[in-house]
Structure formats: structure tokens, C-alpha cells
């Protein structure tokens, strides 16, 4: 006797003679009979559940579909958000200072000065921005430029992997003509570090 015969018996697919022999064997072998009864009860239980609704059998599939739909929606929203952000970010606003960058272009020095009341104004055109602070030479920094308004802050440009030109200065090039008038701030973050960023504000007139 094996599982296949149990299935045949419980499904009613055995001849009467075979079923009778099978039943005699069950009466003589209680452990085997328990296996058969389990199969009978499983079938009966499934039938009863299905009498109400077969939704139980596909329930999670429906959840899965909802989850998938939510995922697609989230993906679309995230895509739209990122597209909107990327449209607002101008890749040419910020640039690294190279060795051959001319010293003749206007510059703006940004530093945290205790008690300073005036926010620096950004000159027109291409500007060499000197960010003054304490930097670890040999380490890399990210420079993030945010535009600030009363209601929100949006990132305008980001420059990764910048090395300070000295232990107190980090320089970047900024194209002022690409910026709308308003308040801006640089955030300088040391890469792979939990150090507080250096935040420095300026105004584009």
C-alpha cells in the first residue's frame, strides 16, 4: 500500500473489490488508516472551504497584484519626482577647479564669520568660490548647492569627489548666470564620514 493508492481510494477511483481489500488492510493497520483519514479530512476540509468561495485559493495572488500595482505606481511617482529634480539640476552650474583654471575670474569667499550680518552676493558670470573651513587634506568632499525659499529647499547641483586645495580652503567654480535670483547655500560634506556638513549661504541678486 502506498500514497498513490490512498489518493485513488479517497478520490473514489478504486474498483469496489480493490476498495474492499484496501479497507480490510486499513482496519488491520491503524497507522496506515490514520494516513488515509488525514487525506479524507484534507479533501473534505478543502471542499468545505471551497463551498463558501474559492477566493481563499488565490487570496495572496490578489494581494500580490495589489502590491505590484502599488509598486508600479510608486515607481512612476519616483520616476516623475527624479525627472523633475533632474530637470531642475543643471550639470554645468558647478565644476571642479583645475590646475589651468584662470586666476583672473571673479571670486567669492565664503566663510563662517561669527557675528557677520551680511550674506555674500554672487558676482555675475563664472565665479571661483573659495569655501573656507577646516578640511582634511587627502580626503574627498561633496559640495551640494541648494536653493532655499520660505517653503522648500531644492538641490540645484552637486559635485562629488572634491579635494581641498589646502587644509582651510576648498574651491569650486560656479556659473552665476545659470542661477535664478534668490538665496542659496553650499553644504560641504566629507565623504564616508559622519562629520557635520559645513553650511555656507550666499545670495544671487
Amino acid at each position, binding site marked *: 500500500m502506498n*500514497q498513490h493508492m490512498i489518493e485513488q*481510494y479517497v*478520490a*473514489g477511483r478504486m474498483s469496489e473489490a480493490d476498495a*474492499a481489500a484496501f*479497507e*480490510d*488492510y*486499513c*482496519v*488491520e*493497520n*491503524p*497507522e496506515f*488508516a*490514520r494516513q*488515509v*483519514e*488525514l*487525506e*479524507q*479530512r*484534507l*479533501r*473534505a*476540509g*478543502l*471542499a*468545505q*472551504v*471551497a463551498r463558501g468561495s*474559492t477566493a*481563499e*485559493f*488565490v*487570496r*495572496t*495572488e490578489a494581494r*500580490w497584484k495589489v502590491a505590484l500595482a502599488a509598486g508600479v505606481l510608486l515607481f512612476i511617482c519616483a520616476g516623475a519626482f527624479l525627472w523633475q529634480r533632474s530637470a531642475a539640476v543643471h550639470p554645468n552650474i558647478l565644476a571642479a577647479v583645475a590646475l589651468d583654471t584662470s586666476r583672473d575670474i571673479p571670486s567669492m569667499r565664503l566663510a563662517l564669520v561669527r557675528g557677520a550680518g551680511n550674506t555674500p552676493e554672487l558676482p555675475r558670470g563664472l565665479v571661483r568660490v573659495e569655501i573656507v573651513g577646516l578640511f582634511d587634506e587627502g580626503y574627498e568632499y561633496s559640495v551640494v548647492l541648494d536653493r532655499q525659499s520660505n517653503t522648500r529647499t531644492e538641490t540645484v547641483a552637486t559635485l562629488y569627489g572634491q579635494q581641498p586645495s589646502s587644509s582651510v580652503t576648498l574651491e569650486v567654480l560656479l556659473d552665476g548666470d545659470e542661477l535664478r535670483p534668490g538665496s542659496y547655500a553650499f553644504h560641504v560634506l566629507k565623504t564616508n564620514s559622519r562629520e557635520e556638513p559645513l553650511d555656507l549661504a550666499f545670495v544671487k541678486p
Partner: protein
Amino acid sequence: MDFIPGGELSRRIRAGDISAESELIRQFEPGLRVLLRRRTGGDVGLLQDLVQETLLVVIQRLRGEGIDDPGKIAAFAAQTARNLAIASLRKAERQRTDVDSEATERNADPSRGVATLAEDLEAALAVRALLRELPQTRDRLMLKRFYLDDHDKEIICRDMQLSEAAFNQALSRARRRFRQILEERGFTRRDLLSSGL
């Protein structure tokens, strides 16, 4: 439980050994339940009645005249169960056409209805728990097609792109879990005969 040969049981029961009767009940009851479950159409109250009645007939026979071949007690018990099931079916048929006092009384017996309802509920609850636990819709649909729609394994495997081994494994897992759920909920213990004989 070790199997006790029918001849030995028969001899002890005839000698008035009560423990031998208990052993016979423990040994034969699961098989009789299988046999009678198939013939009582989900009426668990009737199933329990017929199991008890069968065992009573067998024990009384062994206490008294005995049977021709004591080695075939199991076959004798199975045939007794079949005969009682047929008789019960005939009686039910008669009751459908003749409204007599016995039938009315039987229909009015609330405990019978509750027992039937309880059994259905146990299996259904365990199945619901099982369905909730099965992580893949494929496994649930497989159960439905195999047990409810009576589709052949080969067809299910082909449609679901499963090997037969994978199918059997999933089925075996489901059975094992179903048994565990029943055991956890105490649905497998059946001492229905302890007070009946």
C-alpha cells in the same frame, strides 16, 4: 502500536479479558473510521455511531460464538461496518418517505447536528490555516485542482510546469502541515469509544 494477531485477540476476548477488547478498539477504530467516512457522506455523527456499533457487534461476537477464522477479525469487522452502513442508508431512505416518530426525534436531536458541524468546522479551520500559510498561490491552486477538481497529476504538472517530484513534494508538505495544524489544535484525538462500550 504493535499489531496483535487476530487469533490472540479473539482468544483473550473470549476468555473475558477486558484489556483485549480495548486493544481491539484501538487497533480497528482508525480503519473503521476510514471505511465508514467514505459511506456516511460527511455526517460525522452517523460515522461515530456506526463505528461504535461495528465494534460492539465484533466484540459481542468474539465474546460469544467467535468467528470461523480468528485470523480474519479485521476482515470480519470491515464487512460488519459495510453491512451496517448499507442498513443505515436504507433506513435513511425509508425515513425520507415515511415521516415517523423515530425520524422526527432523530432530526430534532441537537447534539447530532452540533457534532457534525464541529467536525466540518475542524477540517475547514485547519484547511483555512493551511491555505493562509502556503506562501505560493501555485501550491494552493495545486491543492484545489488535485483535491477539488480531481485533475490528474500529469495534467496539473504540465499546466503548472512542475516536475512530478516537485508536485509530490509540495503535496507532501501540505499534508504534513495539515496534520500538524490538526494536532496543534487537538483535532486528532478521538476518544469517542471510551464511553460507548
